């Protein structure tokens, strides 16, 4: 093996302000930029959800300030039905793309993947910088949809054709806003592909001496597997968005059949297939939800092990399960389309692998639970969110068990049961992964500790609050409460409004609780206690250097790795009950 085991830095230390903080090639800065963008997106998305929830239970109430955002969408502050759908579309789009793909994957992954494998930076720092700024451009394009004449699109984050494809005729919100949506997502795909490219090449080629694939932390494995999934998924969404934009602007008919009379206009298109859009979209869309959850699984597992002071019963099993989920994720997209009019036999074909995903998910859950037994669990804000993740992952997962069966889906499709399911796994569990990662890695990223008491308070309020919000969704779904309705006027829906009121109060309360987190984040950034290099006594390489790390991560040192990252417990090391990965001390037998 050659002696020059770590790559020479691609770029020197940044000099100017622009190079240091704006157009930075440093993966750490880029990671923080992604995090900041995700923060803006999540606050926007959360405010949108408040507006939605308020409208659902008080449809005629004027909402202060809303009339300023859109005179046509909310005249006098009273939301129109189309504006509700537009806000819902933007909520979903922002959350799925700009929060759940950005924060656990692009933000934390960019910051910590190179460090956890002992590299000085990503493989392609310029592409990395481009991928962030391209994401930013996609974000700006999306937000601009709020300000165009016809308003933001209203076809949902799933943008089914022909509603999304024919243009203005299909109604308000389907003018320029929908085209901007398509363009924004197209650009986002480019950014994601650049990001995935970097993650994969870095993981394969830039691991430091001694860092075999088997010795990578679970979080690194999660980012790596996610980037592989991402590469193939976004490569399919891109042409889909292109075809959608062409249908809207160039008169093609990829997704629009003939003979459509919309708003008394006979549409000139012919021969297209609305199902084609669904197939392309969900071929991307299902792997996308695993792109959202896998990094959280990796982050939470990594943090749990550190908090338990003992390794998982088998961290290899967790890694294989993540791989299995990644592989299976490409075989199940049709479970979003059981009732779409595709061949009913294919429903059974898709149902089988969907049910099979239960197996790796259960293996992981059992291993987390089994590993907790007999551990020396340390309760911190980070570990509480990790434990909360397990609870939420179970809750969200079991509802999937219903939806995976086509016969049950006949009843539950397009009801709040589905909304409850994906909010629990994505809107809560994945977000808990982000919170856990934040509390854990904030000291390393900023050099300051966050306030633990505020963090724990944030956890309790959010854990209870999110259960109060999303558990009732499942009961509403069982009652047949249809989703994507801007008001509940049907006979069978009116009696359910009290449940919706409870949910709205819980949502506003939980939303307010997030202010604690924001305050903690901002205050600690400037006034928090100084963070030592390794406040959590963690073994992985990011804790080797001071907080925050120097620009080239390891100060020019070529780190050498001697063992796996989960040497906790009775390891007889000089540091106590753990052994750093770069410590040449012998790894002891784990209990």
């Amino acid at each position, binding site marked *: 093996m050659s002696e020059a085991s770590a790559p020479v830095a691609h770029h020197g230390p940044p000099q100017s302000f622009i190079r240091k903080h704006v157009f930075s090639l440093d993966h750490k800065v880029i990671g923080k930029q992604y995090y900041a963008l995700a923060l803006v997106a999540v606050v926007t998305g959360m405010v949108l959800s408040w507006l939605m929830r308020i409208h659902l239970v008080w449809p005629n109430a004027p909402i202060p300030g809303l009339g300023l955002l859109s005179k046509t969408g909310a005249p006098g502050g009273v939301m129109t039905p189309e504006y509700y759908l537009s806000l819902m579309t933007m909520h979903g789009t922002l959350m799925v793309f700009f929060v759940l793909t950005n924060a656990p994957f692009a933000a934390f992954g960019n910051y910590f993947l190179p460090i956890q494998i002992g590299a000085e930076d990503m493989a392609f720092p310029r592409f990395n910088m481009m991928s962030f700024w391209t994401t930013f451009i996609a974000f700006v394009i999306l937000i601009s949809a709020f300000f165009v004449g016809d308003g933001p699109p209203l076809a949902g984050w799933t943008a089914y054709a022909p509603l999304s494809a024919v243009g203005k005729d299909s109604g308000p919100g389907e003018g320029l806003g929908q085209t901007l949506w398509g363009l924004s997502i197209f650009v986002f795909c480019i950014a994601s592909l650049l990001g995935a490219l970097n993650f994969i090449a870095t993981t394969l080629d830039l691991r430091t001496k001694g860092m075999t694939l088997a010795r990578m932390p679970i979080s690194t494995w999660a980012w790596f597997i996610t980037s592989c999934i991402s590469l193939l998924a976004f490569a399919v969404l891109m042409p889909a968005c292109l075809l959608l934009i062409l249908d809207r602007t160039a008169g093609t008919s990829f997704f629009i059949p003939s003979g459509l009379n919309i708003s008394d206009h006979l549409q000139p298109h012919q021969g297209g297939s609305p199902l084609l859009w669904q197939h392309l979209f969900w071929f991307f869309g299902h792997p996308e939800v695993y792109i959202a959850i896998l990094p959280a699984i990796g982050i939470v597992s990594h943090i749990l092990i550190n908090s338990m002071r003992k390794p998982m019963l088998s961290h290899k099993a967790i890694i294989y399960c993540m791989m299995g989920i990644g592989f299976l994720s490409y075989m199940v997209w049709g479970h979003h389309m059981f009732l779409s009019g595709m061949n009913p036999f294919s429903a059974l074909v898709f149902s089988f692998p969907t049910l099979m995903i239960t197996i790796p998910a259960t293996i992981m859950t059992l*291993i987390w639970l089994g590993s907790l*037994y007999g551990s020396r669990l340390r309760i911190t804000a980070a570990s*509480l969110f990790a434990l909360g993740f397990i*609870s939420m992952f179970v809750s969200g997962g079991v509802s999937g068990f219903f939806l995976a*069966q086509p016969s049950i889906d006949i009843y539950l499709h397009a009801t709040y049961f589905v909304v409850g399911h994906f909010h629990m796994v994505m809107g809560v569990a994945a977000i808990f992964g982000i919170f856990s990662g934040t509390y854990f890695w904030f000291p390393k990223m900023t050099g300051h500790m966050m306030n633990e008491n505020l963090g724990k308070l944030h956890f309790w309020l959010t854990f209870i609050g999110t259960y109060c919000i999303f558990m009732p969704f499942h009961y509403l779904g069982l009652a047949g409460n249809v989703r994507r309705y801007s008001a509940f006027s049907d006979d069978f829906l009116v009696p359910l409004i009290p449940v919706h009121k409870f949910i709205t109060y819980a949502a506003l309360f939980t939303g307010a609780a997030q202010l604690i987190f924001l305050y903690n984040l901002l205050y600690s950034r400037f006034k928090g206690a100084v963070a030592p290099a390794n406040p959590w006594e963690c073994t992985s390489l990011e804790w080797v250097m001071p907080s925050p790390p120097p620009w080239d991560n390891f100060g020019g040192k070529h780190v050498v790795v001697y063992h796996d990252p989960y040497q906790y417990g009775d390891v007889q090391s000089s540091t106590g009950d753990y052994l750093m990965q770069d410590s040449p001390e012998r790894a002891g037998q784990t209990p």
Partner: protein
Amino acid sequence: MRGNMGGKVFAVIVIVIALLSAVPIITHTFLGATVAPPEDISTHGPQIDKQIDDTMLEAGLSFLAAQIVLGFFVWGAGGKKDAKLKNFPGGARYLVLAAILLVGAEAIALGALGTKAWGDVYFKTAAADAIPIQVQAGQFAFYFRYPGPDGKYGAIHPEKIDEGNSNFFGLDPENDVPARDDITSGEMVIPVNKEIHLMMHAKDVGHSFYVRELRIQQDFVPGLDLSLHFTATKVGKYEIVCTQLCGLGHYNMKAYLNVMSQDDYDKWLKAQSS
């Protein structure tokens, strides 16, 4: 602070939440409640309901077990800094095996059992003597069409649709003989205990047909001729609602399914023809 106070609080809260979550399910099962599927009025519905109940039992028990175990293990973990570390008996091996065998078997069983329920709705073709009704979904209403005494539908001409003059289907009775006796209705009227063959046509964008009590749901796909068949078993009025986002009026897009006795249905049909 290294004590496990936070862990014990977590354990209590997670177990309480799990038990509270089970309450509405249990009260529905034993007492009946609003937040539950309504009474089923279709011939294929009981199979679907059984599937839901079986899944609820297995999923519900798994949910409770996992949350309670999580609570117990977190309660017991931690404590003194030098507490002896213990490993779960058997390590990962039995857990992995249990997951694969038990969950795998459960998943396969439920999947296999559900196939019949699915097949009854989708694999069987409508009976030869099923009553044909066409439903057209458009922004934002459902319209139903009966073929009339000649048993044939007139052709749909999208360019002739004129809602102002109640020509919802774009029929051309002047030039198209079968269209002359077609009956159009804003309400879906059917006789009880007779199979209905529902042919679904989308006028503009995607919609979906959903009747909770019938345990039936199917998307309308523009450009595709899809159909459903079912038999209603109880007289009454039920809501048909759209469940596929179709624009601003989606929340309001509905019609009534009126299940009548055979006599009442015949009377109604005769009244429509005249």
